């Protein structure tokens, strides 16, 4: 029976149109709808399913960030996690926080809580780093099964099917291990209203990041954040000949 740690991140909701701040220092986050990173939802779902299959005994959700990260943890609890740990990171430290810092926190918590399995989403839809699982595995010196699309328990450990370019790879790993969830791993359940209410009774521990002894000094400086190039408007051509001429001009035929 394993104990599972799941990392969840609060990101701008996937359906929101992202706007860049006029001073190019980042994107507008004030008054914008946030929700749990979709890949992390898949990770939580997988952990909860492992628990339902009696492979896991306890699911712990972790999130690093300002006070609002607790809403995301609440969602994880509503989906079926047993308890939550909120690692408090605020202000400028949160803005320059990178996968390395998160991985250090996750690694530290994994050891403190004596977990056997860490599951995270493969990447967050805001910074698209796709590094946290890999760095966490390296720091812990545990095996990693990234981009998992299927996780099964086999006698000594786990058999994980991985999504790779143009196909699937099946690997066997011992536990403890780190898994990162890919899109096709499962269909996450919806956090219903009664479950959100019940989740308010589940335990949530608050830990300031510095109590974990993790150095959050920035490793990078954001120089500028810019919009992607705008798609050029099309033009209506009067007849077929002009169209053909234009296509030839553009080297398409």
């Amino acid at each position, binding site marked *: 029976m394993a104990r599972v740690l799941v990392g969840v991140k609060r990101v701008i909701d996937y*359906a929101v149109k992202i706007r860049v701040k006029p001073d190019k220092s980042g994107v507008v986050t004030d008054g914008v709808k946030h929700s749990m990173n979709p*890949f992390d939802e898949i990770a939580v779902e997988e952990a909860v399913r492992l628990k339902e299959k009696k492979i896991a005994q306890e699911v712990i959700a972790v999130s690093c960030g300002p006070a609002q990260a607790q809403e995301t943890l609440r969602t994880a609890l509503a989906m079926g996690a047993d308890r939550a740990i909120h690692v408090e990171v605020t202000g400028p430290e949160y803005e320059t926080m990178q996968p390395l810092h998160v991985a250090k926190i996750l690694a530290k918590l994994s050891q403190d809580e004596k977990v056997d399995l860490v599951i995270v989403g493969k990447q967050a839809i805001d910074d698209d780093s796709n590094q946290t699982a890999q760095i966490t595995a390296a720091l812990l010196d545990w095996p990693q099964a990234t981009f998992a699309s299927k996780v099964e328990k086999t006698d000594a450990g786990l058999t994980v099917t991985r999504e790779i370019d143009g196909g699937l790879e099946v690997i066997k790993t011992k536990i403890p291990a780190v898994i990162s969830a890919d*899109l096709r791993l499962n*269909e996450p359940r*919806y956090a219903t*209203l009664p479950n959100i209410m019940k989740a308010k009774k589940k335990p949530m521990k608050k830990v300031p990041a510095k109590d974990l002894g993790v150095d959050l000094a920035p490793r990078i400086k954001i120089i500028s954040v810019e919009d992607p190039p705008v798609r050029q408007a099309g033009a209506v051509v009067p007849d077929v000949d002009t169209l053909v001429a234009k296509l030839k001009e553009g080297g398409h035929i």
Partner: protein
Amino acid sequence: MAQPHRKAVLNLYKTLLYMGRDWPQGYDLFRKRLHKVFSKNSEESDPNKVLTMIKHGDFVVKEIEALYKLKKYRTIKRRYYDDN
């Protein structure tokens, strides 16, 4: 005035309101429509009819859930997996 299954109706209304927060066209529109539907049938006093309506409401809840899941899955798939 008799209000059969009052608690179940309220629960359904609350659940739908909660789900409306993720509605693609906005919460306000969803809330207005929801309120209209519920107030239209608010005079209903036949318990069996109310029960049928609650069942329909539960069905709508499931449909909305499925809609949200599918919409999210498709958006993420289009953004990250479709190269062409």
